[in-house]
């Protein structure tokens, strides 16, 4: 593959290009765009989890001064394509989950819209609902594929024989709760219809990816829809097209010419914009006396919605992590009367690696081996699932360097051996992995602006990741110029098409397109272009895609302190070492990893969406009761990169780092808590209640 040979900007810790705008409040997020005469939308949500809306009495709401319209299935415009039932807002009277939109108000002020929504009387014919995920359900089924397109089940060798004859066995079940993505900026749309054209100021991870299904739902040529998303306050997988955007567009259609603003409340974030499914994961490991794995089985049970299927790939990382003679992985789903689960930072890897890496710790202890050494001993030669070599794989280097930095050597492996005052002190380790994904379809355009300056245009989205900065660095090196000469334009469907900020694929996909456009530009216009000279190119397919397995790897080390009297857990320090190819910007990259590891800390200790099965919705739907880490919970982060050259992944030699930070963190903490207390918590989150004796 052709790669960037001279890296000057790439690898530099450039300050965020959008930093000054963000800290001075001039970076306009979707809701902050100014309009002369905006309207405000507030939804009415279903109070039953299954049934039909039988009557909507909007008379009191409609009588309120300032209310323009009350929408529901009775009067909303018909969608041209309602085949995606998650997006088929107000197209039928059926209720598919508690919290689903059943009506909405549009008014001159947000306060009026909200008050009006409280006056809409909705009558239901309620049917029994089913929202409980249990392993003993008799209706679990195997999906055709798991997210995004992996085989549901895999089988290598003869697992049953190898496991039953293994000298050392582990057979444990690990569970993770429902968790909700909660970016700081809620899902937000400002929708405006003018003469058949739809414009959205949208908080989205992918302007073009949102436009496609949106245009389809409304039966529009995509060219009639423009989506603008220059600044996005986080997404974590939740900000692709959900019902809230369709709702805003439907409402705006009924008040042509006036922009309709719709930002979800924090409470509304807990129904209808995705979440991580709860998981029940049985792991069986077999090993010889020498600590070499002979059998691995990872059986996953999860939920999906009756409305639409989403199958989280929790067992997929187990297919690539360790060498073994036999391996089986399976996924089974229960379809429930719940909102559609979706992507949440490292779908698959985050819950799956909690289970696998907890079991690996248990197995290392059972074999009498150090957990770092045990993992190194089971390092595979090739990727077993694909039967291919790795383009680069430096898990062992991550484990060794992490152990050195963390001060792992000389650790007393006995559980409950560390005590400082009333604190039990323990340490734990876990591996991380995340695939290096290039999504097809990104196009970049480069034009010469004169005076040595270049416009670089691509419809990418910076959801807080640092893409504004990293893409500028890539463009500078691809063109062989300085970062100060690059005028990057992203976050708008009027720019060339780009793939989504998801799957940690953004930099790989968009950077490859920019690299290709720069190559074409120089071929066509040389080093002395004239003003207006231009080149546009799509990211080519990776010629090495079929020749190598491509993943980033990492190791997370954590120290846990557990109060002997109260079971309070504190994590004073963590070390994360990652092998993720060339790091485009170590400064923003470090921020990504800190964010990922902090989210992993929340997964380990705090996050849990509580559903009361009698009602069917998430009860703790605010930040007072759904806990994520506060600053006081985060201790020292020691983050380091393995210097990794990979000429196969993309021209930059980089691998995505948006998600790998979360992957091993929960298991590292659970393993550290075990080391501290001799209590193995296999059910997240690890709360005082589970540690009190």
């Amino acid at each position, binding site marked *: 593959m052709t790669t960037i040979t001279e890296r000057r900007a790439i690898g530099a810790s450039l300050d965020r290009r959008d930093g000054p705008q963000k800290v001075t409040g001039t970076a306009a997020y979707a809701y902050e765009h100014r309009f002369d005469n905006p309207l405000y939308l507030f939804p009415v949500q279903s*109070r039953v989890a299954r049934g039909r809306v039988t009557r909507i009495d909007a008379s009191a709401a409609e009588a309120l001064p300032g209310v323009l319209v009350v929408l529901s299935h009775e009067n909303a415009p018909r969608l041209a394509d309602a085949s995606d039932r998650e997006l088929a807002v107000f197209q039928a009277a059926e209720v598919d989950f*508690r919290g689903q939109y059943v009506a909405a108000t549009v008014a001159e002020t947000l*306060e009026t819209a*909200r*008050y009006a929504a*409280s006056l809409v009387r909705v009558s239901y014919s309620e049917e029994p609902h089913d929202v409980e995920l249990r392993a003993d359900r008799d209706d679990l089924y195997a999906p055709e594929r798991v997210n995004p397109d992996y085989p549901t089940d895999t089988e290598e060798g003869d697992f049953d024989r190898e496991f039953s004859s293994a000298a050392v066995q582990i057979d444990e079940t690990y569970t993770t709760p429902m968790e909700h993505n909660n970016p700081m900026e809620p899902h937000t749309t400002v929708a405006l219809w003018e003469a058949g054209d739809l414009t959205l100021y949208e908080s989205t991870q992918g302007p073009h990816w949102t436009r496609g299904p949106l245009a389809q739902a409304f039966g529009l040529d995509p060219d009639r829809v423009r989506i603008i998303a220059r600044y996005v306050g986080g997404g974590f997988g939740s900000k692709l097209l959900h019902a809230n955007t369709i709702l805003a567009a439907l409402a705006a259609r009924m008040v042509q010419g006036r922009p309709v603003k719709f930002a979800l409340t924090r*409470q509304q974030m807990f129904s209808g914009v995705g979440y991580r499914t709860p998981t029940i994961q049985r792991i069986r490991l077999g090993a010889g006396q020498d600590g070499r794995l002979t059998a691995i089985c990872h059986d996953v049970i999860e939920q999906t919605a009756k409305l639409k299927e989403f199958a989280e790939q929790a067992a997929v990382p187990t297919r690539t992590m360790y060498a073994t003679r036999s391996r089986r992985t399976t996924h089974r789903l229960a379809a429930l009367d719940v909102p559609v689960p979706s992507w949440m930072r490292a779908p698959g890897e985050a819950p799956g690696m909690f289970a696998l890496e907890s079991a690996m710790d248990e197995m290392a202890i059972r074999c009498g081996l150090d957990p770092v050494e045990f993992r190194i001993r089971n390092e595979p030669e090739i990727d077993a699932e694909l039967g291919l070599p790795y383009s680069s794989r430096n898990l062992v280097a991550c484990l060794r360097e992490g152990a050195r930095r963390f001060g792992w050597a000389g650790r007393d492996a006995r559980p409950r051996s560390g005590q400082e*005052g*009333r604190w039990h002190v323990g340490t734990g380790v876990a591996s991380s992995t995340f695939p290096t994904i290039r999504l097809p379809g990104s196009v970049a355009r480069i034009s010469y602006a004169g005076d040595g300056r270049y416009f670089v245009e691509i419809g990418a989205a910076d959801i807080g990741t640092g893409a504004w900065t990293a893409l500028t660095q890539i463009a500078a090196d691809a063109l062989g110029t300085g970062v100060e000469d690059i005028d990057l334009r992203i976050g708008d469907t009027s720019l060339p098409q780009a793939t989504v900020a998801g799957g940690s694929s953004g930099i790989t996909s968009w950077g490859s397109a920019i690299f290709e456009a720069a190559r074409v530009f120089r071929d066509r216009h040389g080093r002395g272009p004239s003003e207006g000279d231009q080149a546009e190119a799509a990211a080519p397919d990776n010629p090495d895609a079929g020749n190598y397995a491509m993943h980033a790897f990492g190791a997370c080390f954590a120290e846990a302190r557990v109060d002997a*009297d*109260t*079971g*309070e857990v*504190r994590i004073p320090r963590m070390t994360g070492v990652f092998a993720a190819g060339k790091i485009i910007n170590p400064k923003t990259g470090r921020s990504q990893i800190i964010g990922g590891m902090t989210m992993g800390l929340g997964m380990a*200790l*705090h996050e849990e969406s*509580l559903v*009361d099965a*009698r*009602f069917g*919705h998430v*009860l*703790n*739907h*605010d930040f*007072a*009761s759904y*806990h994520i*880490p*506060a*600053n*006081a*919970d985060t201790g020292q982060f020691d983050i380091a990169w393995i210097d990794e050259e990979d000429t196969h992944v993309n021209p930059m030699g980089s691998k995505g780092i948006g998600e790998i930070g979360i992957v091993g963190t929960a298991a590292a903490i659970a393993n550290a808590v075990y080391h501290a207390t001799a209590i193995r918590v296999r059910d997240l*989150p690890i*709360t*005082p*209640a589970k540690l*009190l*004796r």
Partner: protein
Amino acid sequence: MKPFRYDRAEDISGAVATLAREPTGMFLAGGTNLVDLMKLDVVRPDVLVDVRRLTSAEIEDLPDGGLRIGTAVTNSELAADRRIRSRYPALSQALLSGASGQLRNLATTGGNLLQRTRCAYFYDTTTPCNKREPRSGCSALEGCNSGHAILGASRYCVATHPSDMAVAMTALDAIVHIHGPRGQRQIPITELYRLPGQEPQHDTNLEHAELITAVDLPPAFSANSKYRKVRERASYAFALVSVAAALQVRDGVVHDVRIALGGVAHRPWRAEKAEDALRGRPAAHESFRAAAEAELAGAAPLRENAYKVPLARNLMTRTLLELSGER
């Protein structure tokens, strides 16, 4: 949010008289809890009478060596006051363990005392709740109740009181000054709060239009006091269980002691059984633990909150041990 009228009076008597004429009106102070509840339609007052500027924001020395805290004193000011920090450290620690810096800057003493429970069903108007809507039923009784009461609850309500400050004040024998339509009165803080019984819609024994104007702290029998709060994350969370305690030891024997628990009951829970069991006993682990067990003998945990019993026991024992000088 339901539209409401905002009103201000000239003085306390005027505010009380105004509200007395408004059966569905409420006083507004810092608003850190009330405004949220209004946004969520949990409470729907027609009138808000703003008392923030009418009431005292001073902390005065009393002749007997105690302190009088004006009801408009903010949580931040109270926590930072030198007299509070040196004479009533449990109170300062309790305040600083609650909410966030921004909220403490706005929240008042009176408002903190009157904050509502954090039971999720109380906050969610789509579920039954006897406290929000009398006779609709208690959803928490058989629902998600890991944060709920283990002491003094009824089948009508198993909610807990969320305040940290009130727990410390309960241990410190605070006296609450009340100005109402029928004049002024003073009651011990333990008589301000109610157990839920059959009428959990009433958190307190205040009548409509009664206003808390001040809280007196009697002279501390010991400056050896402490507040310890346990929660899942390290800050900005309500207590799973908390304890406020003050201890005076003479010759290795407990001379006097005050203990109150938070997060275990509908009101800050004064642990009188434990106090009685401790007076005259050796200031040692065994007696502390026995006293804690005596207090918790009547605990009636729900499906998800049995952990609170050992947690409260351990927390009382450890806090008393630390106050007795042991680590």
